[in-house]
């Protein structure tokens, strides 16, 4: 019962969102079958591929969902031969499968570039010793922070990958990374 009450607002929000999408489709004078077909196809593509990207803010989420579906419904005027592949393509792009590779080998923009470089380019023994000492202390005093440190700075995982692995919200992960970064800068630099 508690679980149902916890999820109830988001269930109500999703139902209202789906109804709004259908209303948009009907107001564009589309057949109900086509609306259902495009909606289900889009959802299935994102579920099948996994890694669907979402907005945290429900209002932005609703706005962009309605906009994307409205534009997909408009493509159906050109025929299902056009709108079905376009729907699949939209579903694909809005997942992590639609990511691009780091082709230009730019330095990945980050607030922790200085720490990445400090660890990467430490050649002298005393620097390496400082890093090891920091890691040892972090592991003893804050094992959870050490896990995050290890995943981010030693194994090079991205922010959303660490989020998924450790199952923590993005904002909390950022806060913990900032704590680790501040401690590192004070201790090692």
């Amino acid at each position, binding site marked *: 019962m508690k679980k149902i009450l916890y999820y109830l607002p988001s269930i109500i929000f999703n139902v209202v969102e789906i109804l709004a999408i259908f209303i948009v489709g009907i107001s564009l004078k589309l057949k109900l079958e086509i609306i259902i077909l495009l909606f289900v196809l889009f959802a299935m593509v994102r579920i099948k591929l996994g890694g669907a990207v979402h907005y945290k803010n429900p209002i932005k989420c609703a706005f962009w969902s309605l906009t994307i579906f409205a534009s997909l419904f408009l493509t159906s005027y050109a025929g299902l031969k056009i709108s079905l592949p376009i729907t699949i393509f939209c579903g694909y792009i809005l997942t992590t499968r639609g990511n691009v590779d780091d082709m230009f080998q730019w330095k990945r*923009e980050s607030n922790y570039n200085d720490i990445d470089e400090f660890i990467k380019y430490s050649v002298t023994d005393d620097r390496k010793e400082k890093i090891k000492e920091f890691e040892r202390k972090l592991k003893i005093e804050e094992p959870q922070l050490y896990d995050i440190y290890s995943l981010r700075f030693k194994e090079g995982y991205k922010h959303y990958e660490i989020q998924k692995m450790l199952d923590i919200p993005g904002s909390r992960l950022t806060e913990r990374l900032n704590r680790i970064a501040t401690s590192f800068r004070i201790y090692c630099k």
Partner: protein
Amino acid sequence: MIFQIFISILLGLIPEVLFFTLFITYTKGIKEKRVKLFLLISIAYILCMFIQRYKIFYYMLFVILIYWIMKFLYKKKTQIIDVFIISLGFIYVTIISFLGYIFFKEDLSNYYFMMFIARILLFIPFIFKDKFNILYKKYYSLWNRNDEIKRPIKSITLRNISLVTINIAIFLMNIYAISVINFIQ
């Protein structure tokens, strides 16, 4: 008939294929295999645009073929966002064609003149060709999610805007194609 084919090649195929080749190479900063790219896009153009004009399906097929040609020639340098770059080029070509179409006289006495002007207008953006690669790199850098820094636009918002633009363009191209077919009939 031969004259019409010759004009189609001179005022149709060559300028448009040249436009796509230059647009892709300047945007992505590519300096190799440009002649091969031009020739392969020409083949794709003949297959998609000569055989069946004013059908949205073949326009989409043309964009997909260009993407595959780039994948074949440039391998890992070609990324999924290049579909949006090719589509942007296509949208621009369609806008120029549409401008030519709205100024056609009913007796088509100014047809060749308008076609010629349209071909010149097609290459006007290349005045700013140095900016293409800069904008492309910016677009590329904003595509993947990165929660570690504050950005002017979220990755998901950029993707949504790109998709909505393409979808609306398809809708408008469909209207344009139908009106041109009606005009020809």
